[in-house]
């Protein structure tokens, strides 16, 4: 299984095969419904967004359970973010045709994570920092550092969709 370093390896995105399992390591930003509605207040050029809202962090842990949420709820906001430079997305479930088109137009990738695997994905998170909208609580925008975070390549830069 290949390891993809984020954001450095966005240059490798065109080599990813649809249905390929990869491990993600590096920096990603969490954002879900409420943050998408308000708008991401910083530059996401070449960055990857993870659709997630964690549980509270137990004492001594880095983060609480943190699996992916349903990506399609973000579909209405996604093409504009991709046109603005966003390169990667991690979530669960299928995307709209508009999102697939925007992925292809911008050479981006959509990674499918395994839904419900909150405890497992939390174990891949090495650092967490709230970087915007702390008032949104679990829906705040977080910068997280992940290590060997397992996902499948679900939509490739050439618009191939895993189904």
């Amino acid at each position, binding site marked *: 299984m290949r390891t993809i370093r984020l954001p450095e390896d966005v240059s490798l995105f065109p080599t990813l095969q649809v249905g390929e399992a990869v491990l993600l390591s590096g920096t990603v930003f969490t954002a879900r419904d409420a943050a998408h509605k308000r708008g991401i207040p910083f530059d996401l050029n070449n960055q990857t967004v993870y659709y997630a809202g964690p*549980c509270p962090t137990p004492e001594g842990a880095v983060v*609480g*359970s943190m699996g992916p949420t349903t990506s399609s709820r973000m579909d209405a906001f996604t093409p504009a973010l991709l046109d603005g430079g966003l390169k990667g997305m991690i979530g669960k479930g299928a995307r709209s045709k508009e999102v697939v088109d925007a992925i292809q137009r911008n050479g981006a990738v959509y990674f499918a994570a395994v839904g*419900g695997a909150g*405890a497992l994905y939390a174990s891949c998170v090495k650092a967490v920092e709230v970087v915007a909208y702390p008032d949104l609580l679990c829906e705040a925008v977080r910068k997280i550092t992940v290590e060997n975070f397992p996902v*499948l390549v679900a939509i490739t830069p050439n618009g191939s969709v895993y189904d």
Partner: protein
Amino acid sequence: MKIITTEQIEESVYRAFLRAGKRIVPAYKAKLADARTCESNPRTVFALDFMIRNAELAEEKNLPVCQDTGVACVFLEIGQEVHIEGDFIEDAVNRGVRRAYQDGFFRKSVVDPLTRKNTQDNTPAACHYEIVTGDKLKITVLPKGFGSENMSKLYMLSPTVGREGIVRAVVDTVRQAGSLPCPPVVVGVGVGGTFDTCAFLAKKALLCPTGQSTGRSDADGIAEECLAKINELRIGAQGFGGAVSALDVRILTAPTHIAGLPVAVNIQCHCMRCEEEIL
């Protein structure tokens, strides 16, 4: 007459949610392992392996199985010979929920529907009270995630569509949900009653233990047919394609009107978390 205090109710709700958030119901966990043996697609196996490993990790590390610890659904079956002493029963339930979500490090996901302001303690619980015979009080808790809840549907069918129409409604709902509700799903179905009672039955059907009759063999037969047809959809774990798209279908019924056939379909993700306490 048996006296049960609201303090006992609070403690039972607290204990049940603390357990529920951290483990998949063992019979459904076993079904995930069974599903793993039915699949050959490496992506589907990848998904099932992680689902199973995640459930183990959650129990080992005492962490929520899924970050969506849901709306706290609480079903109270109150024996008519029970006398409840203390304060208001629903305040006691909400105290139990508040403490469990705090102490369990569960996510607080409940907001006002209009302002979207978070209540910050996951209350209020969605409480359902039923008066039953006897002197026991049974509390069943279901932390209900919304990735799957959002895929649920209610149909007011024409009575003449019969069994075939019921099966079609259930299978269509699961087909349209596709990869979104974290399959393999569990499907709770309500058939009959009125608009409101039908939806309640669908949720209550999720609580019926897997592998046991719901008490009505003809309904169980329809459920089996639905399950077979859902698995023919080949949605598979996480929508990656495969033989197991649902772990079970459970149907509860209620008498309805000559002019109608309500069918409610409540979808539950593979993280089936449900615990009970009997006082």
